[in-house]
């Protein structure tokens, strides 16, 4: 938790491309961020901005035609991008585990939940009786009756399935969890339950989270730091409060204006006009300039670089060139 410590995960200039018949899709373009121990880092952006691609690339589980075209991801000093298959197999789940977007698709419909939880532990060399005991403990931990371990996925409700998936992610006590839109498929009430559960578990077990969502209001609630992604770039990085109260990048402002506020006078919601760019041939200069209300002539010519506004608030926008 000490920021002067070496970060748990340090991503430097990570680039991911999809090779398609139409050309290369630059899904993630030289993205850098880090996750400190015990921190919750949020990654937000609209659909297709590359946030899920980052999550999957960090575990190297993207399937071709995706290729990682550069960069490093140092986890406890080891570069994930330099690992070979056996190393990755030992690394995944024991160091970083992932909670997938759709719990129904993440669980095997013809296997009992118990077997799906113990499966990963047995694979990583935990012995049978211990794995069985841990399965019970894990269900206790995420707040499901351990008797339900013998259920099949379709016999559980959506919220319970997501809890079961979180239990599986915690099976090997990893120091870091990636949560890829864990609550998108759930209704708001269950969503709140799950988020509280995650916060509580994090306090108890002390893992870090890379939390990916398009729901900015939710991120502000749960995370300590937030990175905003647009078209494969991180455009703004700041502590959660700071970003919420003092957003700088026009895109972040647009996102903020897309959410209704519960308190205060009724305001007309302002969205962001236009749609995300085609990443096979992204716009020149700043990729956001065709949709930006504050675009200047320079925006279409030169890609903005990250400007440090304060110790931990940075933004990539020409408005802040000094």
């Amino acid at each position: 938790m000490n920021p002067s410590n070496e970060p748990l995960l340090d991503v430097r200039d990570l680039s991911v491309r999809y090779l398609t018949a139409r050309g290369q899709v630059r899904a993630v373009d030289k993205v850098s961020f880090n996750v400190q121990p015990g921190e919750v880092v949020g990654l937000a952006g609209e659909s297709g901005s590359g946030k899920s691609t980052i999550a999957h690339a960090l575990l190297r589980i993207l399937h071709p035609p995706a290729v990682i075209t550069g960069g490093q991801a140092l986890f406890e000093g080891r570069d994930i991008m330099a690992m070979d298959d056996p190393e990755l197999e030992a690394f995944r789940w024991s160091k970083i585990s992932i909670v997938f977007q759709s719990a129904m698709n993440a669980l095997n419909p013809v296997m009992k939940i118990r077997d799906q939880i113990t499966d990963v532990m047995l694979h990583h060399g935990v012995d049978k009786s211990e794995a069985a005991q841990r399965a019970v403990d894990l269900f206790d931990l995420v707040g499901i009756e351990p008797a339900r371990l013998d259920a099949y996925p379709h016999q559980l409700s959506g919220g319970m399935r997501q809890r079961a998936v979180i239990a599986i992610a915690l099976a090997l006590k990893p120091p870091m969890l990636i949560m890829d839109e864990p609550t998108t498929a759930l209704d708001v009430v269950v969503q709140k339950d799950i988020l509280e559960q995650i916060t509580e578990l994090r306090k108890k077990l002390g893992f870090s989270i890379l939390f990916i969502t398009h729901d900015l209001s939710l991120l502000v609630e749960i995370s300590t730091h937030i990175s905003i992604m647009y078209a494969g770039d991180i455009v703004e990085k700041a502590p959660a409060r700071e970003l919420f109260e003092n957003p700088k990048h026009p895109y972040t402002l647009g996102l903020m204006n897309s959410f209704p506020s519960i308190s205060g006078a009724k305001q007309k919601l302002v969205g962001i006009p236009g749609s995300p760019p085609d990443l096979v041939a992204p716009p020149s200069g700043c990729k956001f300039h065709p949709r930006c209300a504050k675009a200047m002539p320079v925006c279409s010519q030169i890609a903005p670089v990250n400007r440090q506004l304060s110790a931990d608030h940075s933004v990539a926008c020409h408005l802040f060139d000094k």
Partner: protein
Amino acid sequence: MTVNIDCKSASSSRFGKSVSAQWDFFRRVLNQPKAIIGLVILVLFMLMAIFAPLLAPYDPSEYVGLANQPPSAEHWLGTTGQGQDVFSQMIYGSRISLFIGFTVGIMSTLIGLIVGMIAGYLPGVVDGVLNVFTNVFLLIPGLPLLITLASFLPQGMVTVILVLSFTEWAWPARVFRSQMLCLREKDFVSASVVSGERMPRIVFAEIMPNMLSLVISSLFGSVVYAIASDASLAFLGFENVNIVSWGTMLYWASNSSALLQQAWWTFLPPGLCIALVSFSTTMLIYAMDEVTNPRLRSEKEITRVLNKYHIGSKRSTPVLHEPIE
């Protein structure tokens, strides 16, 4: 009192694939080299069958020369053990073989479609009964049944077509039924039920267009099977051996011990023709499969790109260190 929902607008164009999407599909199939090869061969054979009287130099049943003559300028593919012109026989033989092949293919696909779609759409008693029938026909060994039927029924082309269709519909029926079971659960089917469409319309106008590519590839598969079965029946002598077809050519070649006489020109042409027609239809099926299954296509593309950058393992996301352009 009755609420009349206009179901015209709720036709397949809104819920299933549109007609133009189907055309686009066939256009993409025809862009494949495999499809072009298959189509060219098939069309050549069809032209050969249609214009047989113009192409054949002799009457195929007439004894026009000495027996077992090797290919010469007079008889391009030699003569049979009975002294008929092999080239003319091969050309005329395509008529019977292709006709039987396509008729049986269409008939068995149609029967399979009707049985399979109805069984799949109506679970319970209807499905139970039709499924038992299908299973029985799948289980009975094909060739013995063919031979038994063909030897007891009056000889002739109609008999052959009926017998082959009768023994062949079960496999397509099974395929269509399983596809139906899957499509039946889709929302667009519920939408057509709610909008008051009748069962035949839902099954054949709403659902069937969604499996058109499967129907066509099954049709071609049946054609190949029918041509081969027809040739086997004829070769075994269970057809009217006085008709000229590729199968009866093989029968006569075998009868006059062509192998012993080393008269390769009597059995190679009909054998090659059967193989080529099978090859062409199989190529068409492959081409269709590749278009309907984009995975196959992208897989090929990916392997090509990965090989280009010398990336072997595909279990984990590959990391490229050199820049790609």
